């Protein structure tokens, strides 16, 4: 156990994490150079394309150190995005140390900080690596100072490297061996294995990636998943080299995989503890929690015949993604589809993109919304994922919405603009400090609902792309929210209702019904479009009754002429949906599903 080192790499997007991992694989001869390809550990095309890591792929390397001993180095890669911060924390929990990679030109960014803090929280030994020192814009001294002053780490032992040029790689390997402590734990104690990820394989079922904390696990053993209380017999255990290779047993301190004929991924969730079913450990390892989706959107196939296909595809993705939830939904404009819940915007984007690419389904994703908590007058709490989940206003005691703590790193010149944006989005100021004279760290608490509506894009354009952000979920807070209903000719239309802050209700209601007024054609009677909160109407527009009606001549007994004109006219209206007696065109629904374009 003394020559095992378990570590991970944490870095902001683009700071060179995957390239560094590639170099380590090469230097330890884990992968022959000719089989090497870029971002080896990122298995999905999407990851390579976006340069981000979504799924963790652990790898076991053998390294002969300068002290003459051979060490087993287990690299546990981590996703770099905050949507997956729970997975990050589970991965960190499986390690004793972390490489903190910082771009020598960019310096400390928002995610660097968040992840470094997570690592500190887990008690990890942190080795700062200043990467890309070969770049012309590299400012290693400045970055070292930031590591010291902003993060608060001792920078004297930081390693200067260029993963791309292969500079500093040996130093990194030596530091892993010398500075990261070997795992502690007792191979003879009761089995406790931390699942830090699970994937689904079509042939083998669920494969759990584990870190053995105490005890041993081997083929034929009866095991218990402590959170889900499921019992299975182990079929195979083994290591990642980086492909899976079977072994006799895994013991305390080691990282590997367990296959136990588990059929569904939710039975073996990240963070759960595997123990022996016959002589179980007293308690599971700490830190497990069931993560709940916070962002929701509707997914609808463009071709309605694709609906069963879409269901199959989402079910397949869910096999591999226990945080994805979905339920069937019907939309006036889009027909049958699903309302899906995600950990965040990136998780949503990736899922939609995978459905498009891997399953070749053309689909429409509606504007995202958040999950609300509603305290009813009888004291019970319900969760609402869409406006129609909201009960009658009279029954609502209080509404809570999810908040995030948003950290923005940006040049000092743009602070005013960024603060204004946060204020406009109902942000609550937390702190502002100068990292350098030109660079500022700005922290706000922001309702998630305000964040998911193009906040990041706005911020990027306001700061010309110089801002980096990170956020963490800080739970639900009471908010002065109202549900605004839209009534067409007296009929409430679910598809048009929305949730917003009380102070924004009038303005948004007005913009919505104005838009509808343009989109709903004149009918045979006057149509009222109203926006109401409960029974109180807050805004109203009227669509004047139809007048244009051509009384044309009948040409030489040609009655087909009129019929054909009417058929043409009808064709245009065919795509309309009847709301009570009113014909509403699809565009109206579609316009509403897209994000609001205000001022």
């Amino acid at each position: 156990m003394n020559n095992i080192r378990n570590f991970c790499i944490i870095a902001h997007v683009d700071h060179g994490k995957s390239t560094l991992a590639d170099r380590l694989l090469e230097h330890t001869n884990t992968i022959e150079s000719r089989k090497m390809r870029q971002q080896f550990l990122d298995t999905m095309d999407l990851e390579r394309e976006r340069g981000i890591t979504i799924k963790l792929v652990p790898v076991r390397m053998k390294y002969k150190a300068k002290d003459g001993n051979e060490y087993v180095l287990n690299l546990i890669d981590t996703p770099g995005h905050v949507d997956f911060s729970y997975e990050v924390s589970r991965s960190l929990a499986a390690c004793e140390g972390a490489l903190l990679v910082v771009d020598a030109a960019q310096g400390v960014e928002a995610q660097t900080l968040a992840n470094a803090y997570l690592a500190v929280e887990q008690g990890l030994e942190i080795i700062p690596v200043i990467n890309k020192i070969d770049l012309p814009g590299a400012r290693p001294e400045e970055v070292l100072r930031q590591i010291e002053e902003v993060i608060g780490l001792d920078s004297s032992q930081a390693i200067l490297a260029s993963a791309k040029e292969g500079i500093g790689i040996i130093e990194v390997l030596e530091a892993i061996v010398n500075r990261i402590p070997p795992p502690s734990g007792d191979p003879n104690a009761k089995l406790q294995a931390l699942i830090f990820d699970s994937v689904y394989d079509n042939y083998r079922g669920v494969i759990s990636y584990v870190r053995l904390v105490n005890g041993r696990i081997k083929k034929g053993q009866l095991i218990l998943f402590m959170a889900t209380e499921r019992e299975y017999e182990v079929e195979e255990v083994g290591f990642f080299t980086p492909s899976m290779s079977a072994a006799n047993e895994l013991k305390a301190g080691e990282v590997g995989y367990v296959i136990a004929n588990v059929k569904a991924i939710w039975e073996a969730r990240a963070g759960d503890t595997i123990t022996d079913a016959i002589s179980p450990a007293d308690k599971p390892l700490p830190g497990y929690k069931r993560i709940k989706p916070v962002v929701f959107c509707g997914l609808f196939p463009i071709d309605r015949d694709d609906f069963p296909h879409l269901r199959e595809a989402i079910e397949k993705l869910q096999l591999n993604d226990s945080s994805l939830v979905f339920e069937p939904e019907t939309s006036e404009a889009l027909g049958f589809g699903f309302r899906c819940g995600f950990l965040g915007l990136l998780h949503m984007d990736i899922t939609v993109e995978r459905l498009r690419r891997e399953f070749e389904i053309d689909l429409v994703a509606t504007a995202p919304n958040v999950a609300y908590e509603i305290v009813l007058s009888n004291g019970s709490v319900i969760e609402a994922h869409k406006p129609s989940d909201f009960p009658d206003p009279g029954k609502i005691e209080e509404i809570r919405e999810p908040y995030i703590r948003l950290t923005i790193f940006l040049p000092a010149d743009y602070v005013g603009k960024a603060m204004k944006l946060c204020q406009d989005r109902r942000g609550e100021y937390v702190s502002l400090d100068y990292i350098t004279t030109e660079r500022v760290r700005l922290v706000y608490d922001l309702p998630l609902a305000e964040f998911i509506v193009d906040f990041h894009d706005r911020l990027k354009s306001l700061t010309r792309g110089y801002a980096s952000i990170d956020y963490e979920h800080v739970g639900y807070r009471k908010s002065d929210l109202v549900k605004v209903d839209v009534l067409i000719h007296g009929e409430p239309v679910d598809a048009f209702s929305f949730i917003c802050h009380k102070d924004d209700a009038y303005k948004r209601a007005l913009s919505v019904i104005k838009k509808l007024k343009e989109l709903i054609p004149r009918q045979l009677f006057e149509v009222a479009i109203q926006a109401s909160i409960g029974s109180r109407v807050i805004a109203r527009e009227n669509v004047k009754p139809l007048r244009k009606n051509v009384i044309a001549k009948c040409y030489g007994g040609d009655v087909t002429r009129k019929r054909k004109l009417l058929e043409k006219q009808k064709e245009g209206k065919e795509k309309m949906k009847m709301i009570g007696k009113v014909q509403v065109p699809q565009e109206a629904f579609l316009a509403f599903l897209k994000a609001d374009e205000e001022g």
Partner: protein
Amino acid sequence: MRKDNLNYSVMPLSESFSWALSCPVSLYVHIPFCVQKCPYCAFYSVVPKTGDIESYLNLLDNELKMWTSLTGGKIHAQTLYVGGGTPTVLSSKHWEQLILTLERYVNFLPLLEASVEANPGTLSLGHIKLWRSWRITRASLGVQSLDDAELSWLKRPHGAYEAADAIAALVASGLDTSVDLMFGFPGQTIRSWHRTIKDCLKFGIRHLSIYELTLEENTPWGENPPEGLTEGYPLYRFAQWYLPKRGFIQYEIASFSLPRHWCRHNIAYWQGGNFLGIGPSAWGYLNGYRYGNASDIKLYADSISRGEFPIVYEEILPNEKAAAESAMLALRTMWGVSARAFRRKWGWQAYKKFLQVWHLLPEDCKKTIQGKHAFSAKGFRVANSLWEQFL
């Protein structure tokens, strides 16, 4: 079902078809000539050159002869309508020839009505005299407006004064006189519209047709629309209010008349009567079979001279569609759809379907009196939207 060649293929020589031809029909004769093309007009017509009219009258003679070869005797016509184009572009002499042709092939014994269309610029006393001496009972005059500014904007070849003269002459001759008016011009107001209608009524006309200026495809204005058209709706509504006060009944969506002075020929169109259309771009309907002649005098002439019918469009609608169409046509008139007759003709299922749609229409757009479903005055105003429901 538009065809590439001019050969008719569907014309059914079935019993019901022959039966239709042996019974009295309505006969439409198209005169495809005008002294000029009006920019809004989509009727087929050309400006005649010397000799064109004579040869056309010969072609008409031949086409009628072909029809009589199917009937095995003269065609029985209960109404006649000579329209255009401009039938008054034909001189009295031409008219004499046309009358001879008609008498040769048509039996007018049960004749209820014979109408001609006339234009103020070309109408002569000679025409009127001839018509009166023959079987013509009714004349429809293309006045369009009694306002000189509006007429010149429309590029009509006549002025208000000429139009007034023509109305007076027709009424004086004892012909049942109808006037066509148009609305929706730029700058037209209810006052100017009222003046035109009132002035027309002063002459003692018994029938009035009103049409909204429509920009049709394949017309100069259809390609380059004029600007500033007035919305027609209020003008139409005014006519609906004003004319009944003067004793005129709106018996059809575009037609008002003193009681029983309706145009029976047009009613045949709306009520599913059989009619034969003769001449280029004319349409006919015989017990479910509908045809359209070539809208081109050259194509028309070619096929007639080959001894073939100049038919380029034919259709026999399936029962359900035919029933819906018949309901839409009947709803143009104040008599509307008779529940009993409709059921008998199209069947119980078709009637049920009709009722399903009928019940969806707004209450103030319809009325049902003694088993007849008809549009109200408001219903006529928004008829397009109502009809659409039946498709």
